[in-house]
Protein backbone atom coordinates (compact mmCIF):
# COMPACT_ATOMS: atom_id res chain seq x y z
CA UNK A 1 0.00 0.00 0.00
CA UNK A 2 1.34 3.41 -0.94
CA UNK A 3 -0.27 6.23 0.98
CA UNK A 4 -0.61 9.82 -0.22
CA UNK A 5 2.28 11.82 1.11
CA UNK A 6 0.32 14.94 1.98
CA UNK A 7 -2.59 17.18 1.06
CA UNK A 8 -0.69 18.66 -1.85
CA UNK A 9 -0.29 15.26 -3.43
CA UNK A 10 -4.01 14.56 -3.06
CA UNK A 11 -4.86 17.85 -4.77
CA UNK A 12 -2.39 17.14 -7.53
CA UNK A 13 -3.66 13.66 -8.24
CA UNK A 14 -7.36 14.49 -7.92
CA UNK A 15 -6.88 17.12 -10.63
CA UNK A 16 -5.17 14.59 -12.89
CA UNK A 17 -1.52 15.10 -12.05
CA UNK A 18 1.04 12.33 -11.82
CA UNK A 19 -1.33 9.70 -13.26
CA UNK A 20 -3.90 10.32 -10.56
CA UNK A 21 -6.65 9.37 -13.02
CA UNK A 22 -9.41 11.08 -11.04
CA UNK A 23 -12.81 9.52 -11.46
CA UNK A 24 -15.98 11.37 -10.48
CA UNK A 25 -19.03 9.14 -10.61
CA UNK A 26 -22.66 10.05 -10.20
CA UNK A 27 -25.47 7.53 -9.99
CA UNK A 28 -29.20 8.13 -9.75
CA UNK A 29 -31.01 5.47 -7.74
CA UNK A 30 -34.78 5.33 -8.17
CA UNK A 31 -37.04 3.76 -5.56
CA UNK A 32 -38.32 1.15 -7.97
CA UNK A 33 -37.29 -2.40 -8.74
CA UNK A 34 -37.78 -2.92 -12.47
CA UNK A 35 -41.47 -2.17 -13.09
CA UNK A 36 -42.66 -2.15 -9.47
CA UNK A 37 -42.28 0.29 -6.63
CA UNK A 38 -39.66 -0.73 -4.09
CA UNK A 39 -41.00 -2.01 -0.80
CA UNK A 40 -41.53 0.50 1.94
CA UNK A 41 -38.57 0.87 4.21
CA UNK A 42 -38.78 0.37 7.97
CA UNK A 43 -37.60 3.10 10.29
CA UNK A 44 -34.45 2.08 12.05
CA UNK A 45 -33.74 -0.87 9.82
CA UNK A 46 -31.53 -1.49 6.83
CA UNK A 47 -32.66 -1.92 3.26
CA UNK A 48 -30.56 -3.01 0.32
CA UNK A 49 -30.46 -0.80 -2.77
CA UNK A 50 -28.93 -3.63 -4.81
CA UNK A 51 -32.08 -4.16 -6.87
CA UNK A 52 -33.18 -0.53 -7.11
CA UNK A 53 -33.26 0.88 -10.64
CA UNK A 54 -30.30 3.12 -11.35
CA UNK A 55 -28.57 5.14 -14.03
CA UNK A 56 -25.42 3.07 -13.65
CA UNK A 57 -25.88 -0.51 -14.75
CA UNK A 58 -29.64 -0.77 -14.38
CA UNK A 59 -30.34 -2.89 -11.31
CA UNK A 60 -28.65 -5.75 -9.53
CA UNK A 61 -29.67 -9.31 -10.27
CA UNK A 62 -30.80 -11.78 -7.65
CA UNK A 63 -27.94 -14.22 -7.20
CA UNK A 64 -28.33 -17.97 -6.99
CA UNK A 65 -25.22 -19.95 -6.13
CA UNK A 66 -22.50 -18.17 -4.19
CA UNK A 67 -20.72 -15.71 -6.46
CA UNK A 68 -18.16 -12.93 -6.29
CA UNK A 69 -19.63 -9.67 -7.64
CA UNK A 70 -17.11 -7.19 -8.97
CA UNK A 71 -16.90 -3.74 -10.53
CA UNK A 72 -18.56 -4.97 -13.71
CA UNK A 73 -21.55 -6.42 -11.90
CA UNK A 74 -24.73 -4.40 -12.28
CA UNK A 75 -26.11 -3.21 -8.98
CA UNK A 76 -22.77 -1.71 -8.00
CA UNK A 77 -21.15 1.64 -8.76
CA UNK A 78 -19.14 0.12 -11.66
CA UNK A 79 -16.07 2.25 -11.10
CA UNK A 80 -12.96 1.60 -13.17
CA UNK A 81 -9.98 -0.30 -11.86
CA UNK A 82 -6.68 1.43 -11.12
CA UNK A 83 -4.03 1.19 -13.80
CA UNK A 84 -0.25 1.07 -14.00
CA UNK A 85 0.22 -0.79 -10.74
CA UNK A 86 -1.39 2.01 -8.75
CA UNK A 87 -4.06 1.71 -6.05
CA UNK A 88 -7.43 3.41 -6.04
CA UNK A 89 -8.65 5.56 -3.17
CA UNK A 90 -12.04 6.96 -2.29
CA UNK A 91 -11.51 10.65 -1.52
CA UNK A 92 -15.09 11.48 -0.69
CA UNK A 93 -18.70 11.08 -1.61
CA UNK A 94 -21.93 13.02 -1.51
CA UNK A 95 -25.65 12.36 -1.53
CA UNK A 96 -28.93 14.14 -1.94
CA UNK A 97 -31.93 12.09 -0.92
CA UNK A 98 -35.71 12.22 -0.83
CA UNK A 99 -35.88 10.71 2.66
CA UNK A 100 -34.02 11.01 5.93
CA UNK A 101 -31.71 8.18 6.86
CA UNK A 102 -28.18 7.03 6.26
CA UNK A 103 -26.37 5.62 3.25
CA UNK A 104 -23.78 2.91 3.78
CA UNK A 105 -21.28 2.33 0.99
CA UNK A 106 -19.78 -1.14 1.08
CA UNK A 107 -17.81 -3.62 -0.97
CA UNK A 108 -20.10 -6.53 -1.76
CA UNK A 109 -17.53 -9.30 -1.46
CA UNK A 110 -19.73 -12.36 -1.92
CA UNK A 111 -23.40 -13.09 -2.25
CA UNK A 112 -25.78 -15.94 -2.87
CA UNK A 113 -29.52 -16.43 -3.11
CA UNK A 114 -32.14 -19.10 -3.40
CA UNK A 115 -32.36 -19.86 0.31
CA UNK A 116 -35.76 -20.73 1.74
CA UNK A 117 -37.77 -19.33 4.62
CA UNK A 118 -39.27 -22.74 5.38
CA UNK A 119 -36.17 -24.94 5.51
CA UNK A 120 -35.27 -25.70 9.11
CA UNK A 121 -31.96 -27.43 8.50
CA UNK A 122 -28.65 -25.80 7.63
CA UNK A 123 -28.65 -24.19 4.19
CA UNK A 124 -25.30 -24.10 2.42
CA UNK A 125 -23.70 -20.79 1.44
CA UNK A 126 -20.09 -21.48 0.37
CA UNK A 127 -17.93 -19.53 -2.03
CA UNK A 128 -14.41 -18.18 -1.63
CA UNK A 129 -13.55 -14.53 -1.10
CA UNK A 130 -11.24 -12.82 -3.57
CA UNK A 131 -11.07 -9.42 -1.81
CA UNK A 132 -10.27 -8.71 1.82
CA UNK A 133 -9.59 -12.41 2.13
CA UNK A 134 -8.14 -12.01 5.62
CA UNK A 135 -11.67 -11.29 6.70
CA UNK A 136 -11.05 -8.51 9.22
CA UNK A 137 -13.98 -6.11 9.18
CA UNK A 138 -16.13 -8.29 6.96
CA UNK A 139 -19.75 -8.63 8.01
CA UNK A 140 -22.51 -11.20 7.40
CA UNK A 141 -25.82 -9.85 6.13
CA UNK A 142 -29.04 -11.59 5.18
CA UNK A 143 -30.75 -10.05 2.13
CA UNK A 144 -34.39 -10.83 1.37
CA UNK A 145 -35.10 -11.15 -2.37
CA UNK A 146 -38.73 -12.38 -2.27
CA UNK A 147 -41.18 -12.23 0.60
CA UNK A 148 -40.62 -14.90 3.24
CA UNK A 149 -43.06 -15.87 5.96
CA UNK A 150 -44.99 -13.95 8.58
CA UNK A 151 -43.80 -15.97 11.56
CA UNK A 152 -40.96 -14.42 13.51
CA UNK A 153 -37.90 -16.67 13.83
CA UNK A 154 -34.20 -16.28 14.34
CA UNK A 155 -31.31 -17.10 12.03
CA UNK A 156 -27.66 -17.89 12.64
CA UNK A 157 -24.70 -18.47 10.36
CA UNK A 158 -21.84 -20.92 10.69
CA UNK A 159 -18.68 -19.23 9.47
CA UNK A 160 -14.91 -19.10 9.43
CA UNK A 161 -13.53 -16.17 11.36
CA UNK A 162 -10.64 -13.81 10.63
CA UNK A 163 -8.16 -16.30 12.07
CA UNK A 164 -9.29 -19.08 9.79
CA UNK A 165 -11.17 -20.87 12.55
CA UNK A 166 -14.23 -22.61 11.11
CA UNK A 167 -17.39 -23.65 12.92
CA UNK A 168 -17.98 -20.25 14.47
CA UNK A 169 -21.65 -19.34 15.02
CA UNK A 170 -23.16 -15.87 14.83
CA UNK A 171 -25.52 -14.48 17.41
CA UNK A 172 -29.13 -15.11 16.39
CA UNK A 173 -30.97 -12.32 14.60
CA UNK A 174 -34.69 -11.92 13.98
CA UNK A 175 -36.04 -12.97 10.60
CA UNK A 176 -39.60 -13.32 9.34
CA UNK A 177 -42.69 -11.30 10.31
CA UNK A 178 -43.35 -7.69 9.33
CA UNK A 179 -40.20 -5.66 8.90
CA UNK A 180 -37.99 -8.73 8.59
CA UNK A 181 -39.52 -10.50 5.63
CA UNK A 182 -39.96 -8.09 2.71
CA UNK A 183 -37.78 -7.95 -0.37
CA UNK A 184 -34.82 -5.56 -0.01
CA UNK A 185 -34.62 -5.99 3.76
CA UNK A 186 -31.10 -6.42 5.15
CA UNK A 187 -30.51 -8.25 8.43
CA UNK A 188 -27.07 -8.05 9.98
CA UNK A 189 -25.74 -10.98 11.97
CA UNK A 190 -23.46 -10.18 14.94
CA UNK A 191 -20.42 -12.41 15.20
CA UNK A 192 -19.51 -14.91 17.87
CA UNK A 193 -17.80 -13.44 20.92
CA UNK A 194 -14.21 -12.46 20.22
CA UNK A 195 -14.48 -12.41 16.42
CA UNK A 196 -13.79 -9.33 14.29
CA UNK A 197 -14.28 -10.64 10.79
CA UNK A 198 -15.33 -13.33 8.37
CA UNK A 199 -13.40 -15.32 5.80
CA UNK A 200 -16.18 -17.66 4.68
CA UNK A 201 -19.72 -18.76 5.46
CA UNK A 202 -20.52 -22.42 5.56
CA UNK A 203 -24.27 -22.25 6.15
CA UNK A 204 -27.20 -20.45 7.70
CA UNK A 205 -29.89 -22.01 9.85
CA UNK A 206 -33.40 -20.85 10.72
CA UNK A 207 -34.72 -21.60 14.20
CA UNK A 208 -37.95 -22.82 12.55
CA UNK A 209 -40.03 -22.16 9.47
CA UNK A 210 -41.20 -18.62 8.82
CA UNK A 211 -44.19 -20.05 6.93
CA UNK A 212 -43.29 -19.01 3.38
CA UNK A 213 -40.29 -20.07 1.32
CA UNK A 214 -39.69 -16.79 -0.48
CA UNK A 215 -36.09 -16.24 -1.43
CA UNK A 216 -33.25 -14.89 0.61
CA UNK A 217 -29.50 -14.93 0.47
CA UNK A 218 -26.34 -14.09 2.32
CA UNK A 219 -23.91 -11.25 1.67
CA UNK A 220 -20.38 -10.86 2.95
CA UNK A 221 -19.89 -7.11 3.06
CA UNK A 222 -17.00 -4.81 3.87
CA UNK A 223 -18.38 -1.40 4.96
CA UNK A 224 -16.43 1.56 3.61
CA UNK A 225 -18.24 4.72 4.61
CA UNK A 226 -21.44 6.01 6.15
CA UNK A 227 -23.23 9.28 5.46
CA UNK A 228 -26.13 10.76 7.37
CA UNK A 229 -29.14 12.42 5.72
CA UNK A 230 -30.68 14.69 8.34
CA UNK A 231 -34.00 15.23 6.57
CA UNK A 232 -35.93 14.62 3.40
CA UNK A 233 -34.49 16.76 0.62
CA UNK A 234 -31.10 17.02 2.25
CA UNK A 235 -27.93 14.99 1.95
CA UNK A 236 -24.29 15.14 2.86
CA UNK A 237 -20.74 15.51 1.71
CA UNK A 238 -18.27 13.05 3.19
CA UNK A 239 -14.65 14.08 2.86
CA UNK A 240 -12.43 11.21 3.88
CA UNK A 241 -9.40 13.50 4.01
CA UNK A 242 -10.80 15.32 7.00
CA UNK A 243 -13.16 12.74 8.49
CA UNK A 244 -13.24 9.16 9.63
CA UNK A 245 -12.57 6.48 8.58
CA UNK A 246 -9.71 8.05 6.63
CA UNK A 247 -9.19 7.40 2.94
CA UNK A 248 -10.74 4.03 2.11
CA UNK A 249 -8.62 2.01 -0.30
CA UNK A 250 -10.81 0.59 -3.03
CA UNK A 251 -9.72 -2.91 -3.89
CA UNK A 252 -9.27 -3.77 -7.54
CA UNK A 253 -12.53 -5.25 -8.83
CA UNK A 254 -14.45 -3.97 -5.77
CA UNK A 255 -18.23 -4.12 -6.09
CA UNK A 256 -19.26 -0.86 -4.44
CA UNK A 257 -22.91 -1.11 -3.42
CA UNK A 258 -25.34 0.73 -1.20
CA UNK A 259 -27.46 0.02 1.86
CA UNK A 260 -29.91 2.46 3.38
CA UNK A 261 -30.77 2.91 7.05
CA UNK A 262 -34.28 4.33 6.96
CA UNK A 263 -35.87 6.90 9.21
CA UNK A 264 -39.36 6.36 7.81
CA UNK A 265 -41.34 4.14 5.49
CA UNK A 266 -40.46 6.26 2.44
CA UNK A 267 -38.25 4.29 0.08
CA UNK A 268 -35.50 6.71 -0.98
CA UNK A 269 -34.58 8.29 -4.30
CA UNK A 270 -30.88 9.04 -4.13
CA UNK A 271 -28.28 10.87 -6.14
CA UNK A 272 -24.88 9.55 -5.11
CA UNK A 273 -21.56 11.12 -6.12
CA UNK A 274 -18.07 9.84 -5.43
CA UNK A 275 -14.57 11.06 -6.16
CA UNK A 276 -11.60 8.71 -6.56
CA UNK A 277 -7.93 9.09 -7.37
CA UNK A 278 -5.08 6.69 -7.91
CA UNK A 279 -1.71 6.53 -6.23
Amino acid at each position, binding site marked *: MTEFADLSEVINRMTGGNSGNPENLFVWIDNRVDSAAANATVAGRMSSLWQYNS*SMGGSGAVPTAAAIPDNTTRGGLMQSNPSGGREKWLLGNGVTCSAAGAVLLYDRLLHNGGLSGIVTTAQTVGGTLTRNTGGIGNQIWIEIYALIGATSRTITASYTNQDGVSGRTTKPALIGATGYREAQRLIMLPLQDGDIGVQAIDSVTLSASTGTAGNFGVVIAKPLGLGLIPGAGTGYWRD*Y*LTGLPGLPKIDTNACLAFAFMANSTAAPQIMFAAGFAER
Partner: protein
Amino acid sequence: MALADYQALKDAIEKGKQYLFTKNSQTATSTKLTTLWLTTPDAGAIPSTPAACNADTVGALFSEPKLTNLTKSYHLAQAEAGCFTTSNSSLWLIDRLCHQGGLSGTATATQTTNLPTAALTRYTDGVGVMAAIEIYAAIGTLAQTATVSYTNQAGVAGRTSKPVVIGAASDNALGRFIPIPLQDDDIGVRSVESVTPSSSTATAGNYGITLFKPLMLLPNLAVGIHAIQQRCMNPFLGGFGGSPVIDDAACLQLLAVANTSSIGIVHGAFHLAEA
Protein backbone atom coordinates in the same frame (compact mmCIF):
# COMPACT_ATOMS: atom_id res chain seq x y z
CA MET B 1 -4.03 20.67 -16.40
CA ALA B 2 -3.42 19.50 -12.87
CA LEU B 3 -2.81 21.63 -9.82
CA ALA B 4 0.67 20.99 -8.45
CA ASP B 5 -0.07 21.28 -4.76
CA TYR B 6 -2.05 23.08 -2.06
CA GLN B 7 -0.32 26.38 -2.71
CA ALA B 8 -1.17 26.05 -6.39
CA LEU B 9 -4.80 25.47 -5.45
CA LYS B 10 -4.87 28.63 -3.36
CA ASP B 11 -3.19 30.58 -6.13
CA ALA B 12 -5.56 29.14 -8.71
CA ILE B 13 -8.60 30.14 -6.70
CA GLU B 14 -7.23 33.67 -6.26
CA LYS B 15 -6.67 33.93 -10.01
CA GLY B 16 -9.81 32.06 -10.88
CA LYS B 17 -13.30 33.24 -11.63
CA GLN B 18 -16.32 33.79 -9.45
CA TYR B 19 -19.78 33.32 -10.89
CA LEU B 20 -22.73 34.64 -8.93
CA PHE B 21 -26.20 33.28 -9.36
CA THR B 22 -29.70 34.03 -8.09
CA LYS B 23 -32.88 32.09 -8.65
CA ASN B 24 -36.27 33.15 -7.40
CA SER B 25 -38.41 30.82 -5.37
CA GLN B 26 -39.67 27.90 -7.39
CA THR B 27 -42.80 25.90 -6.72
CA ALA B 28 -41.85 22.28 -6.25
CA THR B 29 -43.19 18.89 -5.32
CA SER B 30 -42.01 17.86 -1.89
CA THR B 31 -38.99 15.52 -1.93
CA LYS B 32 -39.02 15.44 -5.72
CA LEU B 33 -36.32 16.76 -8.03
CA THR B 34 -37.17 20.12 -9.63
CA THR B 35 -35.54 21.91 -12.55
CA LEU B 36 -34.64 25.58 -12.18
CA TRP B 37 -34.23 25.92 -15.97
CA LEU B 38 -37.37 28.04 -16.30
CA THR B 39 -36.83 29.89 -13.03
CA THR B 40 -36.18 33.61 -13.20
CA PRO B 41 -33.97 35.58 -13.37
CA ASP B 42 -32.09 34.46 -16.47
CA ALA B 43 -34.62 31.76 -17.21
CA GLY B 44 -34.19 29.38 -20.08
CA ALA B 45 -36.79 28.78 -22.74
CA ILE B 46 -39.04 25.80 -23.26
CA PRO B 47 -37.50 23.77 -26.06
CA SER B 48 -39.41 22.18 -28.91
CA THR B 49 -37.20 20.77 -31.66
CA PRO B 50 -34.09 18.95 -30.50
CA ALA B 51 -31.22 21.26 -29.69
CA ALA B 52 -27.76 20.93 -28.25
CA CYS B 53 -27.16 23.33 -25.35
CA ASN B 54 -24.03 25.32 -24.69
CA ALA B 55 -22.77 28.29 -22.73
CA ASP B 56 -24.60 30.64 -25.09
CA THR B 57 -27.98 29.02 -24.55
CA VAL B 58 -30.26 31.43 -22.74
CA GLY B 59 -30.65 30.15 -19.20
CA ALA B 60 -27.10 28.88 -18.79
CA LEU B 61 -25.22 29.92 -15.66
CA PHE B 62 -21.66 31.26 -15.86
CA SER B 63 -22.66 33.66 -18.60
CA GLU B 64 -19.88 36.21 -18.12
CA PRO B 65 -17.02 35.99 -18.55
CA LYS B 66 -17.56 33.19 -21.01
CA LEU B 67 -15.27 30.25 -20.37
CA THR B 68 -14.76 30.05 -24.11
CA ASN B 69 -13.08 33.46 -23.92
CA LEU B 70 -10.54 32.22 -21.38
CA THR B 71 -7.33 30.38 -22.09
CA LYS B 72 -6.98 28.13 -19.06
CA SER B 73 -8.94 25.13 -17.87
CA TYR B 74 -11.06 25.56 -14.80
CA HIS B 75 -11.86 23.27 -11.90
CA LEU B 76 -14.92 23.80 -9.78
CA ALA B 77 -13.17 24.73 -6.57
CA GLN B 78 -15.65 26.33 -4.20
CA ALA B 79 -19.37 26.90 -3.92
CA GLU B 80 -21.40 28.99 -1.57
CA ALA B 81 -25.15 29.20 -1.50
CA GLY B 82 -27.91 30.50 0.68
CA CYS B 83 -31.54 29.53 0.45
CA PHE B 84 -34.36 31.71 1.72
CA THR B 85 -36.57 29.00 3.08
CA THR B 86 -37.21 27.00 6.20
CA SER B 87 -37.49 23.82 4.17
CA ASN B 88 -34.76 21.30 3.64
CA SER B 89 -33.27 21.89 0.26
CA SER B 90 -30.33 20.76 -1.83
CA LEU B 91 -29.00 21.62 -5.26
CA TRP B 92 -27.34 19.78 -8.11
CA LEU B 93 -25.13 21.52 -10.65
CA ILE B 94 -25.43 19.88 -14.04
CA ASP B 95 -24.19 20.43 -17.58
CA ARG B 96 -27.33 20.49 -19.72
CA LEU B 97 -26.16 18.77 -22.88
CA CYS B 98 -29.26 18.79 -25.07
CA HIS B 99 -33.02 19.07 -24.78
CA GLN B 100 -36.27 18.90 -26.66
CA GLY B 101 -39.97 19.32 -25.83
CA GLY B 102 -43.46 18.91 -27.18
CA LEU B 103 -44.26 15.47 -25.80
CA SER B 104 -47.80 14.87 -24.60
CA GLY B 105 -49.16 13.51 -21.35
CA THR B 106 -52.19 12.08 -23.13
CA ALA B 107 -50.26 9.90 -25.52
CA THR B 108 -50.93 6.20 -25.22
CA ALA B 109 -48.35 4.96 -27.66
CA THR B 110 -44.70 5.51 -28.49
CA GLN B 111 -43.89 9.18 -29.11
CA THR B 112 -41.20 10.33 -31.50
CA THR B 113 -42.19 13.99 -31.71
CA ASN B 114 -39.04 16.13 -31.87
CA LEU B 115 -36.94 13.03 -31.32
CA PRO B 116 -34.25 11.75 -31.45
CA THR B 117 -32.43 14.13 -29.17
CA ALA B 118 -29.70 16.29 -30.66
CA ALA B 119 -26.27 14.75 -30.98
CA LEU B 120 -24.06 15.30 -27.95
CA THR B 121 -21.38 17.93 -28.34
CA ARG B 122 -19.78 17.27 -24.95
CA TYR B 123 -19.20 13.89 -23.26
CA THR B 124 -19.91 12.51 -26.70
CA ASP B 125 -19.21 8.90 -25.76
CA GLY B 126 -22.21 9.11 -23.42
CA VAL B 127 -20.46 7.58 -20.43
CA GLY B 128 -22.06 8.98 -17.29
CA VAL B 129 -24.58 10.97 -19.31
CA MET B 130 -28.07 10.73 -17.84
CA ALA B 131 -31.49 11.21 -19.40
CA ALA B 132 -34.46 12.82 -17.70
CA ILE B 133 -38.07 13.68 -18.36
CA GLU B 134 -38.54 17.43 -17.81
CA ILE B 135 -42.07 18.76 -17.46
CA TYR B 136 -42.71 22.18 -19.04
CA ALA B 137 -46.50 22.34 -18.56
CA ALA B 138 -48.40 20.20 -16.12
CA ILE B 139 -49.48 16.82 -17.38
CA GLY B 140 -52.35 14.80 -15.94
CA THR B 141 -53.19 13.40 -12.55
CA LEU B 142 -53.33 9.75 -13.54
CA ALA B 143 -50.18 7.91 -12.53
CA GLN B 144 -48.57 6.10 -15.43
CA THR B 145 -45.09 4.89 -16.21
CA ALA B 146 -42.88 5.73 -19.14
CA THR B 147 -39.86 4.13 -20.70
CA VAL B 148 -37.47 5.58 -23.26
CA SER B 149 -35.70 3.90 -26.13
CA TYR B 150 -32.12 5.11 -26.29
CA THR B 151 -28.64 4.56 -27.64
CA ASN B 152 -26.23 3.59 -24.91
CA GLN B 153 -22.62 4.53 -24.22
CA ALA B 154 -21.41 1.76 -26.52
CA GLY B 155 -23.45 3.09 -29.44
CA VAL B 156 -26.04 0.33 -29.21
CA ALA B 157 -29.47 1.62 -30.21
CA GLY B 158 -32.81 0.22 -29.14
CA ARG B 159 -32.01 0.00 -25.45
CA THR B 160 -35.03 0.35 -23.17
CA SER B 161 -34.89 2.17 -19.86
CA LYS B 162 -36.45 1.04 -16.63
CA PRO B 163 -39.92 2.57 -16.23
CA VAL B 164 -40.36 5.77 -14.26
CA VAL B 165 -43.56 7.19 -12.82
CA ILE B 166 -45.12 10.15 -14.62
CA GLY B 167 -48.41 11.82 -13.83
CA ALA B 168 -50.32 11.95 -10.53
CA ALA B 169 -49.71 14.69 -8.01
CA SER B 170 -46.14 13.70 -7.32
CA ASP B 171 -44.91 13.53 -10.88
CA ASN B 172 -47.00 15.81 -13.07
CA ALA B 173 -46.20 19.43 -12.20
CA LEU B 174 -44.29 22.01 -14.18
CA GLY B 175 -40.68 21.76 -13.16
CA ARG B 176 -40.55 18.09 -12.29
CA PHE B 177 -37.29 16.58 -13.43
CA ILE B 178 -37.38 12.79 -13.52
CA PRO B 179 -34.05 11.01 -14.10
CA ILE B 180 -34.38 7.76 -16.00
CA PRO B 181 -32.67 4.55 -14.85
CA LEU B 182 -31.06 2.60 -17.66
CA GLN B 183 -31.35 -0.90 -19.00
CA ASP B 184 -29.24 -3.45 -17.19
CA ASP B 185 -25.49 -3.11 -17.79
CA ASP B 186 -25.67 0.36 -19.38
CA ILE B 187 -23.70 3.26 -17.89
CA GLY B 188 -24.66 6.16 -20.10
CA VAL B 189 -26.72 7.62 -22.91
CA ARG B 190 -25.79 9.08 -26.29
CA SER B 191 -29.31 9.84 -27.49
CA VAL B 192 -32.99 9.13 -26.86
CA GLU B 193 -35.08 8.02 -29.82
CA SER B 194 -38.58 7.67 -28.37
CA VAL B 195 -40.73 7.74 -25.25
CA THR B 196 -43.43 5.17 -24.50
CA PRO B 197 -46.01 5.82 -21.78
CA SER B 198 -48.06 3.04 -20.25
CA SER B 199 -51.21 5.09 -20.87
CA SER B 200 -52.60 8.62 -20.77
CA THR B 201 -52.13 10.82 -17.72
CA ALA B 202 -55.35 12.63 -18.83
CA THR B 203 -53.80 16.03 -19.60
CA ALA B 204 -51.50 16.75 -22.51
CA GLY B 205 -49.32 19.38 -20.91
CA ASN B 206 -45.83 19.50 -22.34
CA TYR B 207 -42.75 17.57 -21.44
CA GLY B 208 -39.44 16.75 -23.00
CA ILE B 209 -36.25 14.77 -22.73
CA THR B 210 -33.08 16.36 -21.38
CA LEU B 211 -29.64 14.76 -21.47
CA PHE B 212 -27.29 15.99 -18.79
CA LYS B 213 -24.02 15.35 -16.97
CA PRO B 214 -24.03 15.87 -13.19
CA LEU B 215 -21.11 17.89 -11.90
CA MET B 216 -21.67 18.67 -8.26
CA LEU B 217 -24.10 18.19 -5.38
CA LEU B 218 -24.75 20.95 -2.85
CA PRO B 219 -26.72 19.34 -0.03
CA ASN B 220 -28.38 20.97 2.95
CA LEU B 221 -28.78 24.60 1.97
CA ALA B 222 -31.34 25.01 4.72
CA VAL B 223 -32.40 22.52 7.30
CA GLY B 224 -35.07 24.31 9.25
CA ILE B 225 -32.64 25.93 11.64
CA HIS B 226 -32.71 29.38 10.08
CA ALA B 227 -34.77 30.87 7.32
CA ILE B 228 -31.51 31.76 5.65
CA GLN B 229 -28.65 29.37 5.93
CA GLN B 230 -25.51 29.68 3.93
CA ARG B 231 -23.33 26.79 3.01
CA CYS B 232 -19.77 27.11 1.81
CA MET B 233 -18.36 24.07 0.17
CA ASN B 234 -14.95 23.19 -1.17
CA PRO B 235 -14.65 20.03 -3.21
CA PHE B 236 -10.99 19.72 -2.24
CA LEU B 237 -11.46 20.05 1.51
CA GLY B 238 -14.66 18.88 3.12
CA GLY B 239 -16.29 18.07 -0.20
CA PHE B 240 -17.18 14.92 -2.06
CA GLY B 241 -13.70 14.28 -3.34
CA GLY B 242 -14.17 15.45 -6.87
CA SER B 243 -13.42 18.73 -8.57
CA PRO B 244 -14.65 18.38 -12.12
CA VAL B 245 -13.20 20.41 -14.93
CA ILE B 246 -15.89 22.68 -16.33
CA ASP B 247 -16.11 22.30 -20.09
CA ASP B 248 -15.63 25.61 -21.88
CA ALA B 249 -18.97 25.25 -23.63
CA ALA B 250 -20.90 23.87 -20.66
CA CYS B 251 -24.53 24.87 -20.28
CA LEU B 252 -24.67 24.91 -16.51
CA GLN B 253 -27.92 24.86 -14.63
CA LEU B 254 -29.31 23.99 -11.21
CA LEU B 255 -31.70 21.30 -10.08
CA ALA B 256 -33.19 21.34 -6.61
CA VAL B 257 -34.91 19.07 -4.16
CA ALA B 258 -36.76 20.18 -1.02
CA ASN B 259 -39.08 18.70 1.54
CA THR B 260 -41.83 21.27 1.00
CA SER B 261 -43.67 22.71 -1.97
CA SER B 262 -41.16 25.54 -2.40
CA ILE B 263 -37.45 25.60 -3.14
CA GLY B 264 -37.04 29.13 -1.86
CA ILE B 265 -34.91 31.92 -3.30
CA VAL B 266 -31.37 30.74 -3.90
CA HIS B 267 -28.36 33.04 -3.95
CA GLY B 268 -24.80 31.91 -4.30
CA ALA B 269 -21.59 31.73 -6.22
CA PHE B 270 -19.32 29.18 -7.80
CA HIS B 271 -15.61 29.74 -7.73
CA LEU B 272 -13.43 28.22 -10.41
CA ALA B 273 -9.78 27.47 -9.89
CA GLU B 274 -7.65 28.36 -12.89
CA ALA B 275 -5.30 25.52 -13.76
